[in-house]
Each structure stands twice: as C-alpha cells, then as structure tokens.
C-alpha cells in the first residue's frame, strides 16, 4: 500500500463555500493562512515510550534537525499539536496516553511511530501490549519500521503537513472529520 495523497479537487474547493455572497472570497484566504500556520508550526509533545523515542530524539538532533520545519518539542500536552507515540503501548500505559491525548488542545494530531505503536510490532503475542495505539486514539500517520529511521519519521511529518494543508479548517470537527484518513508510511504489504 502506497501513500495516500489527494490533491485538492474542484469539488472539494466547492464544498468549502459558505452560502453567503462573496463568502468564499473571505473564507478561502483565511483558511489558507490558518492551514499554512498550522502546517508550519507543529509542536510535538516530549513523550517517548521506548526505542523509537531514541530515534525521535535523533530526529531532533543536529543531523536531522526537526526545528527546520518549525517543529519543536514541548513538555506539556497543553502546548502540543502533535503526539508522536514512539514505542509499544502496554495496558498499564494506555490510559495515560489517552489522557495525554485528551489534554492536548484541538486541533491535534497523532503519529504512530514504529511497528509497536502501529500494530503491536514484535509484541503482537504479548498479553500486556495493546495492538496498536489506534485502539484508543485516532492516528493520522503510521510510520512503520522497528524503529523507523529518522528520515522515515521526517517523511511522516511532511506527509502530515500536506494533510493539514488540505484540511478543512473552519468546520474541523474533532475525531469525526473526514480528513482522518490515515497516511501509512513504510509498510511493505
């Protein structure tokens, strides 16, 4: 399965129209600005679980440098836009991840990094591991790999940025919004 990418279609543009005279002319630029701002300022939550967290740190480190894309790490969920779940999720940890997700302000995004967070990874037959973080939080980008290389994570982040750029900003409706179509990176199925 490749990466799902949809260019903005005419119909999609039409659907953004608000039925007031000249509405689109007002709304569209505002939306563009909001999309641009959100996309370019993805602040991530300092939250690592296991091996992938080390690769996440490497991604922020000099050679890969996430700051280039305006991505900095914030320690508190209140100031974060994206949660990178980097590592396996145990039954004991799952409620806390759910709580962290709930504590983040909208709009919020989740990147499942590594095989464990995507689908349980090598621990699929363990009874204490949740088979994928998408069992309790909506995931926007799945980055496979064990652990994924930093380049892979950056790819996922860039894909997420593209997705945000296509997102319908003004009527964004939490988890039920249609844009919640996941992007899958690095899965060779």
């Amino acid at each position, binding site marked *: 399965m490749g990466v799902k990418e949809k260019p903005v279609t005419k119909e999609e543009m039409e659907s953004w129209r608000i039925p007031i005279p000249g509405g689109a002319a007002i709304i569209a630029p505002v939306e563009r600005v909001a999309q641009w701002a959100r996309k370019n300022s993805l602040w991530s939550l300092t939250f690592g679980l296991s091996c992938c967290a080390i690769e996440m740190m490497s991604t922020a*480190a000099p050679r890969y440098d996430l700051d280039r894309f305006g991505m900095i790490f914030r320690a508190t969920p209140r100031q974060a836009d994206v949660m990178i779940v980097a590592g396996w999720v145990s039954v*004991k940890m799952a409620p806390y991840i759910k709580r962290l997700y709930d504590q983040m302000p909208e709009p919020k995004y989740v990147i499942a990094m590594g095989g464990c967070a995507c689908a349980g990874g090598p621990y699929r037959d363990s009874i*204490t591991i949740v088979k994928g973080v998408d069992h309790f939080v909506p995931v926007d980008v799945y980055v496979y790999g064990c652990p994924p290389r930093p380049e892979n994570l950056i790819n996922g982040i860039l894909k997420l940025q593209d997705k945000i750029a296509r997102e319908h900003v003004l009527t964004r409706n939490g988890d039920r919004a249609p844009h919640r179509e996941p992007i899958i990176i690095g899965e060779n199925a």
Partner: protein
Amino acid sequence: MPLTSTEISSPGMTINMGPQHPSTHGVLRLLVELDGEVVHSCRPVIGYLHRGLEKMFEARPYRQCIPFTDRLDYLAALNNNLAISQAVERVGNITVPERAQYIRVMLCEMNRIASHLVFLGTYATDIGATTVFLYAFRDREKMLDLLEMMTGARLTYNWIRPGGVPTDLPEGFEKAVRSVFEELKVTLDENNRLLTGNRIFRVRTEGIGVISKEQAIAWGSTGPVIRGSGVPYDIRKIAPYEVYDRLDFDVPVFDQGDCMARYLVRIEEIRQSMRIVEQCFKDMPDGEIMTKMPKIFRPPAGEAYSRTESPRGELSFFMVSDGSLNPVRVHVRAPSFIHLSMLPDLLKGVKVADVIAILGSLDTVLGEVDR
C-alpha cells in the same frame, strides 16, 4: 507573656512525576512527597513498558530470542545480543571462533560509546544545558554510522548470535573507525570544557546523591554506579569473557559516590572503550567468524547464565533448558532495574531539582527495567 515556639507545618504535596515527564528517561513514574522544595519520600512506579518478554522467550526457539533483546536496553542493543548469545552458548556448549570474539568485543565497546554519549546528552539536558545534548547526539550519529556500516541498522542490530557473528568486517571499516575516533576525541574534550569544568554543573552534581560504598554493594548496584562509589567491580576484569583478558584497559573508579563521580566514570569509559577498539584492530586474527551450528538447535537440559558488563552495569541472562526447542525460562538481570530500586533511599531529603539530577546519573533505561 513567654514566647512559645509554634511549629509551622503544612500538609505535604504529592507530585506525580511521570509517566510522561521530560526527564524521567522513559515512562517511569515517581510519586514524590514534597514539603516545599524538599522531597520527603519517593516511590518509583514501574511496569509501564512491561510486555512479558521473559514469557515470550519461552515460546520461541533459542535463536529467535535475539531480536527481542535488542529492545531491552535499546541504547546498547549489541551488549544485550552478546549477553543472551553467551547464555545460549553456555547452555549448548558452543565455542566461538577467536575472530568472532574480537569482533563482538569491538562492536560492544562501540555501542558502549554510543550509549554513554546518550547519557552525556540526556544528563546535560536534565541539568539544563541543552546544547551539550545536541553535541552529544551529533557525535553519536557518527558512531551509529559505523555500527550501521557493520550491521545495517541504526539502533536494533540483531547482530551477535549464538556461535559468532554473521559477517566479517566491511571494507574500509578500520579507516572509518579511526577517523571517527579522532573526531570524537576532540569533541569529547570540547564537551569536557563545556560541562565538566562548568562551575554550575559542578555545584549541581558534586555531593549530590551520594551512594556510599557499603550502600552500593548492599543494594546490588553495578556498572558506573558502583564504580562511582569506589568499588572496582567490572565484569570485564573480575570474570573476563570473550577476549577481555587479553586486552589492556583501565577501569575508571571514583571514590566520591556522587553524581559527578558517576558522570566522570562514564566519560572516562568512553576513552577506555576507544582504546579497546583500537587494540582489537591490532590483535585480531584471521579465521572463521561463525561456528557451525545445527539448523535445529536443541541444547542439553541444564541451567546456564551469562555475566556481561553492559554500559549500565552487570547484565546477565539466566537460561533454563529442558532439551526441547524452546527455553523453559529466560531471566534478565537488568542493571537499571536494580538501580531504580535504590531511589527511595537516595531521594530522601533532597531538593526537587536533585531528583532529576540523581535519576539522570543512574542512567536507567526503562525498556530494560520493565522487560
């Protein structure tokens, strides 16, 4: 009216550090009882990464256990590979060719350097010096390049296996290693000037979190923690495995037992590891790198354990075999697990900021603690 002293007391405040906290190094949770800034008591809660790994080993053939050990102490995956390989070799009476032993030692020491560089970086962030973190990771990337050149992976190598190592050194490896070491020696000195000599860093670490010699032994601490308390306990010296008895290296020991001592032990170990790797290149004989092993490996019934010195301390795998394809029991003696159990004693009466400093100086990896 006579003056009476009134005791001013306030109810303590319980702070829940973790499981998500920037400096608990993973998903450790510390229930800290505070009186103002002073810690009354602390109770570590672990198990947030528990995946029943030891149980999962019981359902796998011996050689299929190796990839899982990468994810125990993910900062030093090769050291874990080595430990379990040794346990399997002992339970199955396998001897490893000499060249393979040299390669193993070399890779483990390089992984130790990478691991200690992560410590340097994360510890600096704990104390508040963000820049050193990035410098340390910059240097670590070079080490990872070398390991990738050898094994093809950055973090989880799955390389050392029972009987030897799968492939020989790649072309131009020695040259690459030497050039990286030259750079590393320079940047280590740079970090030394930036951090070790820094007055603020010294007042934050000297005399903080003192573990006495007796305490360190009684609690079963190993590795840089016990060596920072003045006990020269290093498995590579007291019970040499592989070819460590033929190599010339020093075991850095500091007597102070504080955070600074543990930090200095690790910094010095980086230098010693470089020395070991350079010697390995010189002494390495030609020859086989893998013992012939049966496709279906059934070791005789019995128990065996390995003792290795991982960057965090004594890492030992205990293995019970009953002659079948799978082990009956694999137990991991994780050094970080033991170190964390010292925390309630260590953290009594320190300041909040010291909690982080002390925890960081133990350099625990939660993947290993929770197993």
